[in-house]
């Protein structure tokens, strides 16, 4: 079976969808030379559907809103996580509210793609954020695929969705490759999580690239603890039923998330579990600390403020013991 990389999966999803639907177009910076490998080959095939933009993120984000209202399906690519904070207002307060404010007259099918969220070694304090929790909090549809297959399927569904959807692709996952039979590539519905590994003692809910770290830890602990790894895949909507079913089986819960602790995804999952699920032991979170800023240029400091496998091991062991 061919090996499909995560970045290639994004490229393939976009190519397939542009082939299928002439209303899909892509805009963003440095697209012609496909700096992020997402738009490779598109300029040749769809010369008038690749819009290379100046450094005007707010302008072109609003532009996409207008184009979507006018019947197109824009895919907007951003180069750096903080750029999504720069356009947060345009997405959450404008694009995401226009349908409601029009009483259903318009729809705003824009996909915002961040092919590289989180820490990239060396890139500095302003380039290492994980802004996904903010979008989910504000009610913007938010997905974070962990694997090439999911990247393909969720990106495709995001483009086909009639609302704004933000697709966060974790930096460390981009290089990941997977054996894939191309015919199996298909849209994956938003809001459907996936048990990546079954287990009986504890559910580890892992977000984005940490799914792979969690699987490694599960392997490592295999003799000692039976770990179930749950990947929500999309944050809003969220697969509460899937998580509940897993916790029902294991009775214990640890969240492994690279976002900041305070009001992060880990908080939401633990809160909901505390309200609604039967737990045999207090749950735990392994996250970035409160207020974390990854300085991004001194790996010693960077790694100190990102969740680690060792922390996950300790948290799992503590949860199964209590």
């Amino acid at each position, binding site marked *: 079976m061919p090996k499909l990389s995560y970045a290639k999966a994004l490229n393939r999803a976009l190519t397939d969808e542009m082939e299928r639907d002439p209303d899909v177009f892509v805009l963003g910076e440095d697209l012609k030379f496909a700096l992020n490998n997402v738009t490779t080959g598109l300029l040749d095939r769809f010369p008038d559907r690749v819009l290379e933009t100046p450094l005007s993120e707010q*302008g072109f984000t*609003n532009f996409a809103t207008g184009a979507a209202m*006018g019947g197109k399906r824009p895919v907007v690519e951003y180069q750096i996580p903080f750029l999504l904070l720069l356009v947060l207002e345009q997405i959450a*307060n404008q694009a995401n509210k226009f*349908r409601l404010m029009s009483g259903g007259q318009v729809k705003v099918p824009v996909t915002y793609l961040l092919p590289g969220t989180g820490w990239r070694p060396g890139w500095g304090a302003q380039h290492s954020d994980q802004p996904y929790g903010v979008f989910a909090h504000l009610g913007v549809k938010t997905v974070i695929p962990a694997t090439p297959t999911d990247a393909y399927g969720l990106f495709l569904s995001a483009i086909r969705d009639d609302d704004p959807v933000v697709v966060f692709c974790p930096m460390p996952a981009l290089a990941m490759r997977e054996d894939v039979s191309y015919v199996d590539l298909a849209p994956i519905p938003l809001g459907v999580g996936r048990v990546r590994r079954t287990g009986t003692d504890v559910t580890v809910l892992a977000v984005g690239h940490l799914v792979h770290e969690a699987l490694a830890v599960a392997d490592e602990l295999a003799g000692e603890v039976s770990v179930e790894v749950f990947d929500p895949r999309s944050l809003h909507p969220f697969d509460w039923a899937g998580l509940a079913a897993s916790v029902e089986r294991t009775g214990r819960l640890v969240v492994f998330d690279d976002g900041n602790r305070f009001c992060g995804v880990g908080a939401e999952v633990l809160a909901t579990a505390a309200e609604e699920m039967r737990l045999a032991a207090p749950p735990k979170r392994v996250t970035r600390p409160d207020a974390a800023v990854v300085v991004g240029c001194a790996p010693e400091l960077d790694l100190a403020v990102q969740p680690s496998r060792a922390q996950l091991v300790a948290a799992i062991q503590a949860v199964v013991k209590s």
Partner: protein
Amino acid sequence: MRPAAEAFYGTIRLIRRFEERCIDLVRSGDIGSGIHPCIGQEAVAAGMCAALRPDDALLSNHRGHGHFLARGSDPGRFLAELTGRVGGVDKGRAGSFHPSDLSAGIWGASGTVGHGAAIATGLGWALARDGDRIAVSVFGDGAVTQGALLESFNLASLWRVPVVFVCENNGYATTLPAPTAIAGSVVGRAAAFGIPASTVDGQDPEVVYDAMAAAVDRARSGGGPSLVEFTTYRYEGHHTFERRMRLAYRDEAEVARWRERDPLAIQAARVPPDVREAVDAEVEEVLDAAVRFALESPHPDPADAFDHLYATPVRLRAGVSHA
């Protein structure tokens, strides 16, 4: 072709009286939001909208009631929107601040001052790919100090988008006089991006029409964006809340000077008295019916609070723990 004098008169009269009725409804509490009255600025709405084709797209702003009426939005359904009723053009989801009415070619009104310009640019770009419809963005003098608006000038110019930027310069952004806010000028900003721009009297609907028609023609024939700045004035406060506050940011003499150029009077002078009387009577009839419709339309059902939030719906959890 420029509409007949009485058509402009009718539009201006309709907007003027509509807004006056609105102010009554603000006082009675039926329009909970208050409104941003455009009284004094009606000629811009009338002249500008007459120069558009019904299928052209306009992005309005917070002071947009005139734009809706001038484009033919149903006064009853529009007023029902302002009173937050299900019979409103947006089913009560927009109110006075963020309305849209696609049947009248108005695609919304972003509350983020200046940002509608980039939305209109994207909309114009999309429309141009499938035909010869154009987009219009209307904003105030306050918007030209918002960077996002200037980004849209750049995009529109680079990509030759069929969009007309209309600045209703009424001299103030809330209490802030335009000259203390705007270094340089409005038209100078557009010109800096290679966008043809002119400053035009906004009190005379016929003058407005002519300037707007030229800009629309340019856009429709592939000439790209242009900007028209209409100088105008609002006789009322920024928002009806000013009726309860004393904000001495402009003096009586200035208001009086502008009242001498009341668009209603300017256009009335061009219409024979008997025609005017007939128009006035019809306007009152229309508005009586509109008020009736707006106040009889049902209030939204709280159970429908999540309707229209998404086009591809998702299951949402309530604000209370359901376990």
